[in-house]
């Protein structure tokens, strides 16, 4: 690791101020991606601004038809929360499949969302459930948030405060996990709320995306068979040593079918 200055923020406002003041700062949430990145010397920030001790940035609340998860809430807390299991069990499944138990004891929803790893699980959940990202400056719709490979709509100095999930009638999340890392080679969150259906895909492309053709077919018939014939074009999908674009495109359909099956089970 290259050396850096460490600053512990006492509030979101202080963190936002510090990140603007320092030369080339990075926000530290759970650190499950950032610290390994630093250890490999893939990043050389001048300062780390730690959110870990900010009070009131953790917690889950279910209010009417909205499940709110604050930014520093850990995957373990989401996976085991009675409110999450009751309102959106598929989201508890998603959080419980991230990394391993020790990683889930540290990693946070805010950190994962802001990092926007193409193979992370949360982006599929956020896009597939149509969540809203609340920052210290504004609210950002899921469809506008993930803009590219490790890129989001967040501006410099903009921090995630919470993620608000509308509670669907039904939802299912299934991923084809890479055998060694557990990351999603392809993961799909499908949700149905009234007649509206969303299909959110992670792992397959540079960032999470929706599949409108599947959404239209599922709105007519919310069954795995309804989308069995829909092929996603591989043109813009990722291709690497783990899976080629054609294979990932195939997985989009297979995982989406399984996610629907999980949602109606």
């Amino acid at each position, binding site marked *: 690791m290259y050396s850096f200055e460490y600053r512990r923020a006492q509030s979101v406002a202080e963190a936002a101020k510090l990140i603007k003041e320092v030369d080339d700062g990075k926000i530290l949430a759970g650190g499950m991606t950032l610290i390994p990145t630093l250890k490999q010397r893939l990043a050389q920030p001048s300062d780390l601004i730690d959110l*870990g001790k900010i009070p009131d940035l953790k917690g889950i609340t279910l209010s009417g038809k909205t499940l709110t998860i604050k930014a520093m809430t850990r995957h373990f807390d989401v996976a085991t929360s009675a409110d999450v299991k009751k309102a959106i069990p598929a989201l508890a499944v998603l959080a419980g499949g991230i990394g*391993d*138990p020790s990683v889930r*004891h540290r990693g946070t929803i805010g950190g994962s969302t802001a990092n926007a790893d193409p193979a992370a699980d949360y982006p599929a959940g956020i896009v597939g459930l149509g969540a809203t990202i609340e920052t210290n400056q504004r609210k950002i719709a899921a469809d506008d948030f993930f803009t590219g490979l490790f890129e989001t709509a967040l501006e410099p100095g903009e921090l995630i405060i919470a993620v608000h999930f509308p509670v669907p009638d039904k939802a299912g999340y299934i991923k084809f996990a890479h055998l060694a890392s557990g990351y999603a080679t392809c993961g799909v969150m499908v949700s149905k709320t009234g007649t509206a259906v969303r299909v959110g895909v992670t792992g397959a492309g540079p960032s999470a995306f929706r599949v409108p053709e599947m959404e239209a077919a599922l709105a007519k018939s919310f069954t795995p068979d309804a989308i069995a014939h829909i092929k996603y074009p591989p043109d813009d999908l990722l291709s690497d040593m783990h899976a080629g674009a054609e294979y990932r495109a195939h997985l989009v359909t297979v995982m989406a079918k399984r996610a629907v099956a999980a949602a109606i089970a």
Partner: protein
Amino acid sequence: MAKISMKVNGKTVSGDVEPRTLLVQFIREHLGLTGTHVGCDTSQCGACNVHYNGEAIKSCTILAVQADGSEVVTIEGLAKPDGTLHPMQAAFREYHGLQCGYCTPGMVMVAVDIARRLPGADEETVREELYGNICRCTGYQGIVEAVMAGSEAMQTGVLPLKEHH
């Protein structure tokens, strides 16, 4: 340098560390507690697991400065001062839950965490929960048996003995 202080195995300790010092480096190099191992150093293998405020975490993936003010228990903190093994340690011995022993401190710390969170967990659950701990010797069978027996011993106070054939 940053001044930090935390409770490790029930004792308050402090030190001056560079911000880039990992918790596992602080534990091993500053405190001399070398029971916590560094295996892969990439958050995969789990050899460095300690209990952090009562939960298993990978001490190679947290800065020592982040752990300021926390309570940490390492493998050295499990046995009683008179040397009596923790029930999970006794189970690992009884069920041959180790060969070379390198992964064992992390395995035992995670096993205790599993037993506390999921008492009575079945074999499938135990195997899933050990996803973040890699052993290159045993093939895991003895480890899984040890976790289940140790978990039972933590509840009942009695370690079921292995059937010897």
